[in-house]
């Protein structure tokens, strides 16, 4: 019960913040709309709706990191969290409390993104469901990243690191906006080491129900998710002791 009630508070803090709605739900819809408009005037295969939607869904998840990191970081400096530290709540209650409410929010965000894509012409298929399901580990990766950054950065630094750097990395190194092979060299190699391009490819493969091709990307994303989650939990617990 301890973590459930704390989760409720985390959920309310995020959904009652208008910025969460604007960036979490509104921004992906605007991006989908604009890029589809470009596609209809100047056809680019990359901006075809079934290729574009998983990319925008993954990009949108980077805002979940921003919301999560901002909340944890602000809480760290607040007397409210200090007050909760004087209760019988354990580190595990805080970790679940901060992460669990973000999972349904991330799923909702992806659902809204795919639903709007359907309006723009994406064919309704089971692939949409598979794409959302297989992107949940990617959502977990971004949520854990939020816990990690929120545990070590001030809220101002979170704005810079998560709001600017991470969202840009998620965009440029994801293969959503341009083909990585067009740049090639170290840029393509770096993109392939990081999880973003794999997350987008995972979403694309799942959307066309091509699970054999999705598997290596899923393993890549899962590995990042596990490593970042373990690091985030260890760092949060250490910070809590301090």
């Amino acid at each position, binding site marked *: *019960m*301890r973590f*459930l*009630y*704390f989760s*409720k*508070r985390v959920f*309310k*803090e995020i959904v*009652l913040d208008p910025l969460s709605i604007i960036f979490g739900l509104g921004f992906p819809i605007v991006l989908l709309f604009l890029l589809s408009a470009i596609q209809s005037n100047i056809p680019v295969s990359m901006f075809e709706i079934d290729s574009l939607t998983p990319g925008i869904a993954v990009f949108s998840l980077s805002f979940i990191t921003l919301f999560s990191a901002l909340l944890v970081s602000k809480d760290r400096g*607040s*007397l*409210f969290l*200090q*007050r*909760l*530290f*004087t*209760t*019988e*709540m354990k580190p595990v*209650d805080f970790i679940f409390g901060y992460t669990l409410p973000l999972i349904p929010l991330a799923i909702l965000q992806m659902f809204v993104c795919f639903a709007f894509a359907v309006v723009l012409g994406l064919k309704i298929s089971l692939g949409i469901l598979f794409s959302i399901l297989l992107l949940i580990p990617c959502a977990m990766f971004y949520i854990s990243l939020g816990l990690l950054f929120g545990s070590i950065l001030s809220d101002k630094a979170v704005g810079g690191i998560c709001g600017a750097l991470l969202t840009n990395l998620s965009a440029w190194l994801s293969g959503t906006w341009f083909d990585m092979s067009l740049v090639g060299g170290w840029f393509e190699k770096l993109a392939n080491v990081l999880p973003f391009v794999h997350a987008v490819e995972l979403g694309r493969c799942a959307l066309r129900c091509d699970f054999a091709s999705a598997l290596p990307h899923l393993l890549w994303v899962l590995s990042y998710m596990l490593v970042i989650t373990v690091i985030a939990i260890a760092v949060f617990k250490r910070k809590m002791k301090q």
Partner: protein
Amino acid sequence: MNDLTLDIEDGELFALLGVNGAGKSTTIKMLSTLTKPDSGDAFIDSKSVVTESDYAKSVISVSPQESAVAENLTVKENLELMAYAHNMTKSTVDEKTAELLEKFSLEKYKDKRAKTLSGGYRRRLSIAMALINSPKVICLDEPTLGLDVLSRADLWEIIRELKGKVTVILTTHYMEEAEKLSDRIGVMKDGKLIACDTAENLKLKTGKDNFEDAFIALVKEGVK
């Protein structure tokens, strides 16, 4: 903190006074297990707050400086959050929440978000949250800081009612508050307790007519 030794009786209202940086809030952080002392210990019911911190957490509550409340939760939800954080069962939570809403005249605001409350009511909520688990000791860290005269008087009434039922450790910058509410007053300077007695005795010891002058004499001249 430096060589701080003091005993506080069950049900006593003990005020800690001192200029900024004297160590009042640090003392409260140590008592409430937020900060571990480099050395030394404090005991509640003969149990150490250092080695038996779980027990300390179950019997000490803190109402921190400023109103540490969850802004987007309602008044009732804030109380429930604290209750569940203390491992209370659903039926006890309901019972205790209703009791505190009534006691602190918060019933009509129970469904309002905490951030919409006035300063005085936020402090009431903050103290009510600290009392949700029926603690043996409650630490009130500058509970009336920044409040208007009427809100302060209301809060004093609430604090007075706690006397004898809960051990209250109160830190404040307001001399009048300490004098009017406390059974005893400890004066801190540079992490040390430089005086500890009733307000009347401290005035007698320093030869001053009012408590503010007595406090200044103690801090400036160190008269014991």
